[in-house]
């Protein structure tokens, strides 16, 4: 490694620096305070996250820094923004959570900050080593968060399961990385791509096996079938707010790294081994997408617990996102993950509020007749569920439409996958409207007390709702910023408003 090629640029890692420093700061604040102050922690975290978001949005020029360890490109900007938005919403909800549960507030915010820093690294990684680092930082903090309610057996089970299976997946990923390194002699993703293109692969079989193992590792982390088995138990057992956080943020971050490695790295068809690798992973992922959607949707139908149901729903959504993934165009995946994160975290926020301390009421049957008793919460939950089902004018519809349209136009003959995804959407309608039926159409179950909603939670709900509708009705600005491929260029030329006849 030559020193002059290091290309140090600390501006390129400002978001990561801000979130890490805020995390450390929170620990200090917590240590010097006499009595744990939730509000101060929440406000410090929020300031840090908003600053990081500003820094992310401020990235203008693409580039590669720290000898290729850190990338600035559109994938990073959009996925980092998604991660930070999820983190902001989690912080807004966290203050009520730690108070209601009577948990120490300090560490929870710190953990959110470090997890966010790890995820941001994952989204910015230009090198397999960085991918691993980011993944580990993000994962280990999330394992702790899953078990944060430490007197609760379910949370412990969730945490342990998440830890064991997560480590298992990381091992797969690491082994895959090692093999790819062995085959190409570099861990830099760009250089891996160049090496494959130039046919400088030592042992082609090593590369293929390595890529397959990485696929398995990433597949575990995004909860795609058949590597999804950990998801329902972990999502059910973790505190709801943590479930909302870990089903969105880390998933988006892993998708970013997954995109970089496969779509940017293993994307060349210039050499025979590259071509083989490329067509193999496209076909494999197309089939994984199909299985993931179907498994998620079909099993979700029979769920009685709303958190489990949303766990299977999140598996299904990973499948839809993979449909966009195999087209090789990052924009539809990035848009999908943003929309998915907003509506999922919003849905979990409502579930958290309705479930109250200790997650007492998380069976769908518990929701009987509460529709008009707490209309703000139930209508919000209905909107999130309908959005997840893909009913317009919500983010869920627009993101699905974007993915389907991209896939239909793709060169890889994916029309069958679009039809399969649509059939899956039809199946999913049933379980998404079921909680609405229970909430609004059934008689009220006795003993319902309207939950108290803190200011932070109110803001979080308003933000997610606005986002859900904004992405569903006026997604143009965002899609344009992503520079989405088909149709974008030509239609922007016809820009003028025409008033027809008078």
């Amino acid at each position, binding site marked *: 490694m030559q020193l002059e090629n290091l290309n140090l640029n600390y501006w390129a890692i400002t978001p990561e620096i801000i979130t890490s420093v805020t995390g450390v700061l929170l620990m200090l604040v917590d240590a010097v305070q006499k009595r744990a102050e939730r509000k101060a922690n929440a406000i410090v975290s929020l300031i840090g996250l908003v600053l990081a978001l500003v820094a992310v949005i401020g990235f203008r020029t693409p580039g590669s820094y720290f000898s290729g360890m850190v990338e600035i490109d559109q994938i990073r900007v959009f996925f980092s923004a998604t991660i930070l938005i999820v983190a902001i919403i989690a912080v807004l909800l966290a203050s009520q959570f730690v108070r209601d549960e009577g948990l120490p507030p300090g560490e929870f915010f710190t953990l959110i900050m470090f997890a966010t820093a790890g995820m941001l690294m994952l989204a910015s990684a230009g090198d397999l080593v960085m991918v691993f680092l980011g993944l580990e930082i993000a994962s280990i903090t999330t394992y702790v968060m899953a078990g944060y309610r430490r007197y609760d057996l379910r949370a412990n089970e969730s945490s342990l399961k998440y830890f064991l299976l997560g480590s298992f997946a990381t091992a797969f990923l690491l082994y895959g990385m090692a093999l790819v390194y062995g085959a190409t002699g570099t861990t830099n993703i760009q250089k891996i791509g160049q090496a494959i293109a130039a046919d400088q692969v030592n042992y082609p079989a090593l590369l293929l096996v390595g890529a397959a193992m990485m696929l398995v590792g990433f597949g575990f982390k995004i909860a795609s079938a058949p590597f999804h088995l950990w998801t329902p138990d972990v999502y059910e057992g973790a505190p709801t707010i943590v479930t909302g956080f870990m089903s969105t943020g880390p998933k988006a971050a892993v998708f970013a790294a997954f995109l970089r490695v496969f779509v940017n790295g293993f994307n060349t068809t210039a050499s025979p081994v590259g071509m083989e690798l490329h067509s193999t992973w496209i076909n494999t992922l197309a089939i994984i997408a199909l299985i993931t959607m179907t498994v998620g949707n079909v099993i979700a139908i029979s769920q009685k617990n709303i958190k489990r149901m949303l766990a299977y729903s999140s598996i299904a959504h990973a499948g839809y996102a993979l449909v966009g993934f195999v087209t090789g165009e990052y924009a539809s995946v990035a848009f999908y993950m943003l929309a998915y994160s907003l509506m999922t975290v919003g849905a979990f926020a409502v579930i958290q509020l309705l479930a109250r301390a200790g997650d007492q009421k998380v069976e769908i049957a518990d929701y009987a007749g509460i*529709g*008009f008793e707490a209309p703000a919460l139930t209508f919000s939950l209905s909107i999130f569920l309908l959005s997840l089902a893909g009913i317009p004018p919500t983010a869920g519809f627009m993101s699905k439409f974007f993915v389907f349209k991209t896939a239909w136009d793709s060169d890889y003959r994916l029309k069958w996958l679009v039809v399969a995804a*649509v059939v899956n959407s039809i199946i999913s309608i049933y379980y998404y409207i079921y909680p609405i039926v229970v909430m*609004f159409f059934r008689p009220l179950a006795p003993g319902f007390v309207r939950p108290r909603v803190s200011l932070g939670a109110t803001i979080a709900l308003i933000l997610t709702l606005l986002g859900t509708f904004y992405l569903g009705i006026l997604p143009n600005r965002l899609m344009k910023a992503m520079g989405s491929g*088909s149709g*974008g260029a030509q239609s922007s030329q016809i820009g003028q408003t*025409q008033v027809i*006849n008078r």
Partner: protein
Amino acid sequence: MDIITLTTFLPLVGAVVLLLYSVLASRGDQEKLDNQYRWITLIATTVTFLVSLDIVRRFDASIAGTQLGQKRPWIGALGAYYFVGVDGISLWLVLLTTFLMPISVLASWHIVKRVREYMLFMLVLETGMIGVFVSFDMLLFYLFFEITLIPMYFLIGVWGADRRIYAAIKFVIYTVVGSLLMLVAIIAVYFYCGNTFDIVEITNRLASNPALIPGSVKFWLWMAFALAFFIKVPLFPFHTWLPDAHVEAPTAGSIILAGILLKIGTYGLMRFNLPFFPDVSQRLAPWVMTFAVIGIIYGALVAMVQPDMKKLVAYSSVSHLGFVVMGIFAFTETAMQGALYQMLAHGISTGALFLCVGIIYERRHTRLIEEFGGIGALMPQYSTMFLIISLSSLGLPLLNGFIGEFLILLGTFSSTVPHAKMFAVVGALGVILSAVYLLWMLQRVMFGEITNKENAELEDMDAREKWALVPLVVMAIVMGVAPMLFLRSSEKSVNSVKEAVAGKPAKVAVSR
């Protein structure tokens, strides 16, 4: 802002006003508040109707294409435009919507459960329905098409009768199965026709170059569109959701469902299937007509044996909509004009029939025909109106139903579609059958001695009910006496659809 956009979103503005009002005035007497919500909704829908009248005034009947609207970029990245307007086909459907909504609000005055939410759903629903008829961009159309779904789902599910949950879920699942497959077809058409969602543009491109879409694909795309609309119409054998939804829905829900939502199906057939895929439409016309005629006869026969008045009216809808589909697939101008007219007439008559059933249901909380008898003597005004409306529905000359059915039968008889004459003859039987079931019901409900003691105290209509019912009766008569008032505006547009199917590409220009 153009008049079309204004009309479309006025109800939504009303909804926002209602919501804000309810938040600001959340203290106080609930009954008084509920009454204010009703008035706000009534005013919002009435203003929308008055504004929509201006569309008629400014409508230029000599233009076949879209007018009065606008086209502006909406989602450039996806190639979607905010493209709204009206043509001769959608003009009167928009008016039907805005006309029926204040009446539906009046018909729901007695609702006491969650008035605010009910009225909000009504207003959102109205925006959705108007939006469907004025959209000329496929994505926008799909958006509004689905928006109508959710409010109706809640209206049935929350304010419906005993089996409302079953009916609501069935309604949603049926509609969504159709609409999502249509979404795939929309994406496919977008790419085949050179990256555009513009319905006018696609129609023109396909007319000048039918080979844009390969023949085998065309069939499947036609099927995807048709399935969505056949379910919505509903054409036999996709009709089973309709009786359930109607019976369980509150009165206003039934009026809207029968009066407007079903028309989205027939409208879609005229807007998408015929102009986009003329050859497939022609090839499959005998099949569609077969199902339409089965629907006419089957709906009428089932209606005849219904003990429940509302179910009877619901099945009569299946029968009447069969006529509309038959008329659309006859591909003659007379029949298609008739079909369009029948859509409007059915909206008025069936809406009024549901209203009549609702009025008596509110008094007695039963709709079973056997519970009544001889109420004509007790409720003379009500009975007169019910009689006029029933006569209009069964197609008595000088009332609205006659014009549509007559034109459809006439046009179908002269159609070149194979076996069209036979279909017309068998379909005509449906007219006779509709006289049988409606008159028989009237006889059992209205005439004779008062057989049930519980009916002895029935009161005639009050002012609110008259305000709701009289406009419908007046419209039924006006439409029966002066059909050219309406037919004139739709002539050009219907003709252009007919020409498109006949394979004579009459280029529909977007006039500026």
